[in-house]
């Protein structure tokens, strides 16, 4: 019995940090409508700076002062980020905001390693809370008890702040209707900046307070952000009480989940989240979101199938690509195969995002499931390659069917967060379930059979499949289903009013995209000869998003172009620098700010500008189309 009580208290202590970070995210979202992906990064910087300060200044004053100073310092960084980056993208579609802040996260990951080194850092214990309390023979660290008290205290302070101060009233008003608050003469710029600073302060404080409990390392940002997304999805985005309750719930599920499913404890959290989403899609304490802003892809350039000339041009490009083995070496062919596979991956996400308006932040899950599908079939069942290639993607299909069912219940940022959380769950299973997946060591020795073994043969195989997949998806865009999917993207209200079951259409699209990604993953497993949890990791999901954005989310062929340019750049970059994340992150931020329409979108715009003397009437960012809902 005592053991369970201690386990419960440990869960409560973990909830404190989670609550701090989640409430910060919620406050920022409430006012600015930005889901700050970089929140985990601020949490991590908070921990690192607190580590440095507490090492430098000893004693109780040094420790507690260091923790608070660290949080303040990070809040200051937050203010700079808000003024330099976020102010430029407040009116951009939410996808761009998520990506911009994600680019920031990538940059921070490399910067942190650059400054503090790649090793785990173990911080000091808190003065005054070094010991443990005996509870019927079980030890509870007294610092845990401090954290357990701290959570409700912070909740109370936040409540007072929002109910009793003028600033709090403004924040609550802006959460309800920020345009009205602006119309009443409130200086919105500084309101947003101050809110962002408070949110970042909370995140950094959460990170700083963790140092006596956990080692500080450079991957803690992604771990916390996924948990925080789960917390706000369960608790309801924008609700501080919801963040508190959900943080406690998730922490307790983690604490007890380890006892029930020691290997895959995260399953329990997933199940609870699934139930909450079915019963209350907007979270336990959230309010149903009134007509989410339309996500990507609003364009006034009507889509049309390729003309016969354009088809010939595409065919010519394919023939040129097929002639690569005549003059290129083995390394170039391997790179070519990889690029082809990433084209499959990118077009599958592009289909979901541009046609369906569903920005999945966890698309790598289905790519990786396809790869693992092949690995299981080839290594365990010993099936021939062609069978593996055909059946392997079915694992991606099944994953997409299960997760997609829940994901399409939501839209906009909730959809993005949920798909990310699902992908992270799949990643955790691949990582933790060592007996089946090999864990971190992956599954090795998946080599193609003789007929496809040489680099040129494999290249032709990959190129052929890529061409087929791209054509099939293009046909789907201009099929009745493609129209129905675009209809649900433009207006769910109108879709339902003409008899379209929007969720089922979107679910189908999700499964199509997941299966297609699985095809890419299946080829990838044979290309690399192995599969690893990284094949379904967040960074791969983000690669896909960047490829789509780079190509242009408002176009039909953006996925292909984006994948080729991005992957070629990426491979070259990794061979040139150790700080690839820093450069990549900077690149993403740059795209978001400078090139929101992507390469193909830019080209189309230039072509249009040349055709008409006058500039095109509307751009996505300058003048969002009024969607009637």
């Amino acid at each position, binding site marked *: 019995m005592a053991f369970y009580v201690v386990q419960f208290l440990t869960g409560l202590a973990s909830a404190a940090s989670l609550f701090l970070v989640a409430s910060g995210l919620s406050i920022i979202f409430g006012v600015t409508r930005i889901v700050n992906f970089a929140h985990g990064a601020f949490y991590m910087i908070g921990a690192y700076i607190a580590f440095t300060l507490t090492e430098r200044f000893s004693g109780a004053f040094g420790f507690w002062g260091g923790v608070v100073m660290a949080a303040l310092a990070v809040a200051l960084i937050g203010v700079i980020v808000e003024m330099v980056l976020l102010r430029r993208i407040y009116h951009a579609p939410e996808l761009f905001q998520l990506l911009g802040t994600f680019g920031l996260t990538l940059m921070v990951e490399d910067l942190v390693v650059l400054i503090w080194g790649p090793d785990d850092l173990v911080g000091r214990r808190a003065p005054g809370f070094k010991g443990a309390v005996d509870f019927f023979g079980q030890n509870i660290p007294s610092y845990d008890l401090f954290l357990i008290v701290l959570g409700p205290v912070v909740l109370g302070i936040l409540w007072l702040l929002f109910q009793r101060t003028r600033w709090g009233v403004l924040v609550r008003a802006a959460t309800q209707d920020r345009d009205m608050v602006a119309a009443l003469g409130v200086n919105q710029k500084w309101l947003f900046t101050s809110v962002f600073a408070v949110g970042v302060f909370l995140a950094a404080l959460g990170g700083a307070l963790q140092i006596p409990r956990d080692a500080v390392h450079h991957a803690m940002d992604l771990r916390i952000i996924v948990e925080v997304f789960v917390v706000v999805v369960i608790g309801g985005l924008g609700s501080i009480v919801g963040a508190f309750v959900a943080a406690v719930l998730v922490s307790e599920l983690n604490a007890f989940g380890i006892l029930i499913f020691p290997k895959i404890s995260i399953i329990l959290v997933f199940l609870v989240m699934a139930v909450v989403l079915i019963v209350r899609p907007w979270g336990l304490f959230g309010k149903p979101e009134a007509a989410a802003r339309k996500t990507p*892809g609003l364009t006034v350039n009507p889509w049309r199938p390729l003309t016969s000339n354009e088809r010939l041009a595409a065919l010519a490009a394919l023939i040129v690509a097929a002639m690569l083995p005549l003059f290129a070496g083995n390394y170039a062919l391997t790179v070519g195969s990889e690029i082809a596979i990433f084209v499959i991956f990118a077009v599958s996400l592009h289909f979901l995002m541009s046609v369906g308006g569903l920005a999945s932040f966890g698309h790598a899950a289905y790519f990786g499931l396809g790869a693992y599908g092949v690995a299981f079939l080839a290594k365990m069942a010993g099936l021939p390659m062609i069978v593996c290639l055909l059946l392997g993607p079915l694992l991606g299909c099944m994953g997409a069917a299960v997760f997609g069912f829940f994901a399409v219940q939501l839209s906009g940022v909730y959809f993005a967060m949920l798909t990310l959380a699902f992908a992270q769950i799949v990643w955790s299973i691949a990582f933790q379930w060592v007996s089946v997946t090999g864990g971190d060591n992956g599954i090795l020795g998946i080599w193609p059979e003789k007929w496809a073994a040489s680099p040129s043969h494999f290249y032709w195989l990959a190129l052929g499949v890529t061409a087929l997949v791209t054509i099939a998806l293009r046909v789907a865009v201009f099929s009745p289903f493609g129209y129905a999917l675009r209809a649900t993207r433009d207006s769910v209200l109108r879709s339902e009013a003409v008899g*379209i079951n929007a969720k089922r*259409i979107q679910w189908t699209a999700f499964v199509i995209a997941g299966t297609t990604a699985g095809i890419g993953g299946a080829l990838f497993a044979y290309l690399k000869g192995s599969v690893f949890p990284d094949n379904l990791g967040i960074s791969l999901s983000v690669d896909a998003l960047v490829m789509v954005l780079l190509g242009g989310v408002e176009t039909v062929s953006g996925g292909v172009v984006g994948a080729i340019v991005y992957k070629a750049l990426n491979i070259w970059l990794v061979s040139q620098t150790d700080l690839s994340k820093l450069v990549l992150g900077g690149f993403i931020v740059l795209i978001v700010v400078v090139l929101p329409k992507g390469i193909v979108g830019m080209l189309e715009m230039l072509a249009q500008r040349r055709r008409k003397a006058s500039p095109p009437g509307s751009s996505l960012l300058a003048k969002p*189309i*009024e969607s*009637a809902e």
Partner: protein
Amino acid sequence: MSVATPLLAVEGLTKSYGGIHAVRGVSFSLRAGEILALIGPNGAGKSTCFDMLNGQNRPDSGHVRLLGEATTGKKPREIWRLGVGRTFQITATFATMTVRENVQVALISHEKQLFSLWGSAPNFDRGEAGRLLELVGMGGYADRPCGELAYGDLKRLELAVALANEPKLLLMDEPTAGMAPRERVDLMRLTARIAREKSIGVLFTEHDMDVVFEHADRIIVLNRGTLIAEGSPAEVRGNPQVQAVYLGEGLVYDARHREGASS
């Protein structure tokens, strides 16, 4: 006058939000080819009533029957499949698609081809889509992106979309709101003509009394959630209770109002 089964039969429709009775025991019916206006001052319960007819809102009690079939509790898309077209107070269209594509989506849905992955949607029922657009006078706009249209044209496009499933009943929520006076007249004339030709029943809510009295065959008046009058335009115009509701706080109204509030 009365037909065996009316196109639409509404009986004792009731809905409250918290302690407020938005709609109380409203009953009326609508025949094929008839144009029925639902009017009343702001807050009378028109929109609540409307939402219960098209499936966006579930009544606390009461029934809605369409051609004898109960539609209470059905989703909007299921009600559409029964043959109900609708237009919205604030237009809802597919903004990134062309005018023709907007109609084609409705035709694809009507012919149950929504999940068809093969076949060319740009050529799907092109002729029928063109005819519907001609019918509402939008034939020349077929290739225009919907997002570029003027508001009055969007309303006409909505009408074409609403007609795509050969509806028996059209539900139009403030069809002329936000339009110029000239456009209002044109749109309602068009609607009336189509309704008579195809024998479609039309139920519309409206604030513009000129539009109502010119085009409605029959008018029902809601006030504070209850039906206070029903009849031809001339009858409704002469009804003292309606005049009181619309023209101001006369003595008659005041007394009744107090009675109503205390009961």
